[in-house]
C-alpha cells in the first residue's frame, strides 16, 4: 500500500516468536468468543428473556389479583407484604416511585417473577447482589429466580426516573 517505493531490503521475516504470539492471541480470542454461548447455556448467567407485550392496565389488574390472593404477611411502609406459595407466578411492578408489592420468598424455592412498569422506564437491580434488569412499560418480563441466601434484598431502581428516583427502593425478604 506504500505510495513510495521503498529502497533495499527493508523488511524482516516474521520471527517464530511473533508467530507464536499471534497464535496465542488467536486462541485466546476464540476462547473469549466461546465463553459467550457457554455463559448463556451452561452458566445460566443470562436472564431467560421471556418477554410478553402487555399494557400498563392489564398488568396492573394481574398484580392486584396477585396481591388480593395473598397470602398476606403484614404491611410495611404502606405496602402489602406478600408471601406467595413456592413454584407460583409472582408479580412485582414499578411505578413512581415504588416497587409494589413487597415480597417474602423462601430460600431454595423457585418462583416465576413477572415484572413490568406502570409509567416510566425503571431499573430492577438487587442490592447488594448487583443484578440489573431494565423494566419498560408495555413489556412483561418473566425472570425465573431461586433465592440461595436468606436475608433482605433491596430492589433499587437504577434507571433514571425523575425526581423520586433515589427513593425508589423496594424489598424482597428471603427466609
Amino acid at each position, binding site marked *: *500500500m*506504500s*505510495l*513510495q517505493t*521503498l*529502497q*533495499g531490503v527493508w523488511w524482516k521475516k516474521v520471527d517464530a516468536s511473533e508467530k507464536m504470539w499471534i497464535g496465542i492471541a488467536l486462541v485466546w480470542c476464540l476462547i*473469549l*468468543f466461546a*465463553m*459467550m*454461548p457457554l*455463559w*448463556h447455556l451452561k*452458566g445460566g*448467567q*443470562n*436472564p431467560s*428473556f421471556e*418477554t410478553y407485550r402487555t*399494557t*400498563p*392496565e392489564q398488568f396492573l389488574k394481574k398484580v392486584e389479583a396477585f396481591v388480593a390472593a395473598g397470602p398476606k404477611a403484614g404491611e410495611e411502609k404502606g405496602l402489602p407484604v406478600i408471601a406467595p406459595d413456592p413454584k407460583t407466578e409472582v408479580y412485582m411492578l414499578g411505578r*413512581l416511585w415504588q416497587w409494589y408489592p413487597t415480597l417474602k420468598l423462601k430460600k431454595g424455592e423457585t418462583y416465576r417473577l413477572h415484572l413490568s412498569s406502570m*409509567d*416510566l*422506564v425503571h*431499573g430492577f*437491580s438487587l*442490592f*447488594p447482589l*448487583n*443484578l*440489573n*434488569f*431494565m423494566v*419498560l*412499560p*408495555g*413489556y412483561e*418480563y418473566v425472570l425465573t429466580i431461586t433465592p440461595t441466601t436468606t436475608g433482605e434484598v433491596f430492589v*433499587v*431502581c*437504577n*434507571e*433514571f*426516573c*425523575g*425526581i*423520586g*428516583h*433515589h427513593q425508589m427502593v423496594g424489598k424482597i425478604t428471603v427466609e
Partner: protein
Amino acid sequence: MATHAAFMPGEAAAAPSGLWSWITTVDHKRIGILYGTSAFIFFLVGGIEALIMRLQLAAPDNTLVGAQRFNELFTMHGTTMVFLAIMPMSAAFFNYMIPLLIGARDVAFPRLNALSYWVFLAGALLLNASFVVGAAPDGGWFGYATLTSKQFSPGQSIDFWVLGLQILGLSSLMAGFNFIVTIVNMRAPGMTLMRMPVFVWMSLVVQFLVVLAFPAITVALILLMFDRFFGTLFYAPAAGGDPLLWQHLFWIFGHPEVYILILPAMGIVSEVLPTFARKPLFGAPVVIYSGIMIGFFGFGVWSHHMFAVGMGPVADSAFSIATMLIAIPTGVKIFNWIGTLWSGSIRFTAALYFSLGFIAMFIMGGLSGVMHASPPVDLQQTDTYFVVAHLHYVLFGGSIFGLFSGAYYWWPKITGRMLDERLGTLHFWLMLIGFNVTFFPMHYLGLIGMPRRIYTYAPDLGWNFWNLVSTVGAFLIAVSFLVFIANVWKTMRAGAVASPDPWDGRTLEWAIASPPPVHNFGVIPTVHGRDELWLQKHGDGHGGTPAPRPPAPTRQDLASIHMPPPSYWPILLAASMLFMMSGALISIYQVVLGGLLTLYCMFRFALEYHRPHPQESLR
C-alpha cells in the same frame, strides 16, 4: 525557510480586525477560533456543573442541591460536554487544520461553514437559556421515553432540550457535508487519499458518521416533538406506542456519536506522536483502515447500551460480539502508536505528554468497555457508577486528553505564540492525577452497587469514602484547568513568538507563517508523499533527494488569489432560525414570523452574489 520569507509574521496582521469582521467572517481559521473559544467556555460551564454535582455527592444525605436541581445538572452536564464542548472542540480543529493540512485556501463552502458555527451557537444558547427561565432539561442526556413525555415532564424543560438538540444537529450535518466535500475535492495536487495526514482521514470518517448518524436522532426528536407538541403517542405504551423505539433510535445515533467524539482525538494523537518521536507514523495505512473499520462497526453495536432491556440471547450475543470486534481495530491503533514511539528520538513536550496520557487512559477505558461488552457482566454493571467510570475514561481520558494534546501542538500555529512548556507539563500532571483520583474510585463504587443519577445516598452503604475521594479529584482537575488558563493568559501577553515550524513538523501547516496569512498558501504546494514538509526538509530517509519546495509566490501569484468575501447572512440566518425555534416555547405567531424570516434569509443567503471588486487584491 528562506523561500517563505514573504510570509513571515506581520503579514497576517493586515487581516481585517474588529468585531464586525469576526461576525461576518467566512475564514475557516477564524471560524475555527470561534468554535474553539465557545467550546472551551461551554467546557468550563459543564465542568462547573460537574463540580456542583461532586460537592453534592461528597457526603451522604447532603442537601447542597435538591433532587430537581441535581437532575438538571447531570442532564445539562452530559448534553453540554457531548454537544457543546467535545464536538465543537473537534470542530475547531477540523475548521482550522483541515484546509492547512490538505494545502487548501479555505473549505469548500465558506459561508456554509460560518452558518454551521452560528447555528451551533444558537442551539447552545437556547439550551443554556433554560437555566435562565428556570426550566433546565431534567430527563438525562439520553432522554429515555416515557420520562420525556408531556405526562411525566409537563413543563418546558424537555422542549428546550428537544429544540436545542435539533438546532445543534443541523449545525453538525452542515459541517459534515462541508468537510466531506472539502476533503474529497480540495486537496493539493499530488495529495492522494493515502497521502492525507491521519488527522484528516479520521476527520473524514467522523464526517461520514455525522452525516449518517444524526438523521436517526433527528427522526427520534421529531417523533418526540410531535408527542409533546401535537399529542401524538409514538412513545406511549398505554396507546400502543413503544418506549423501546426511542432507545433504539437514540442509540443508533448515540453509539456512532461516541466515535464522533473519539476519532478526532485519535487523529490528533496520530499527528503529535510522529512529530515528537521524529519517526513516521508506524503502519499509517493500517491506522487509517482501523479508523474506517471503527466507523463502520460503530453502526452495528448500538444495542449494547440496551442489554438489560430483554432483547433476547440472540440479539444480545450478536451485539456483544460486534462490540468486542471493535476492540480489534482500536487495539491495532494503540499498538501502532506505541510502535511509533518505539526507538524514536522522543522530545517530551506538553503536547506529547497529553498524547501519552490519551493512550494510557484510553486503554483503561477501552478495557472496561470490553468488560461490559459481555452481557452477563453488563447486567451487573449497567446503570451503576462503573459505567460512569468507563465513559469518563474514554471521553475525558480519551477525547479531552487528545484534544488538549492538539491544543498544545497547534497553539503556536494558531496564535503565533508559544505556550509555556513548564505550565503545560504542570497542567498535564495535575489533570492526569486529578482525573484518576476522580474516576478510578467510581469503578469500585459501581461494583459495590451505587446506581447512577441518584442525588444523595444513605450513610450506611459503604459509599462515603470513595465519593469524597472522587470529589477531591474533581477539584484537582479544576485546578489543572486554572493552570491552563493562566498559561494562555501569560503567553498571550508575553509569550515567545512562534516560528513557522517550531516543532520541526512533518505536515503542510508548518510550511507557512504562524499564524497563517488569510490565504494560507501563496502558491498551492505540490505533494510528493505523506509527511510532505518532512520530505522537503529531510528527504525520504533512504538517501533520496529532498522533495522540491514550492516556489516563492510572485506578486502576480498573490494578486490572483481570490478569497471569499465576508457575509452577514450566516449569522442572520442562524438568528432567525433561533427566533423561529424558540417561538415553539412562546407563541405560534413567533414560529410563523420566524419561519418567514428564516426563509427570507435562506433566499438571500443562497442568492448572495459577489462581483469581484476591481481593486480586490490580497490583503
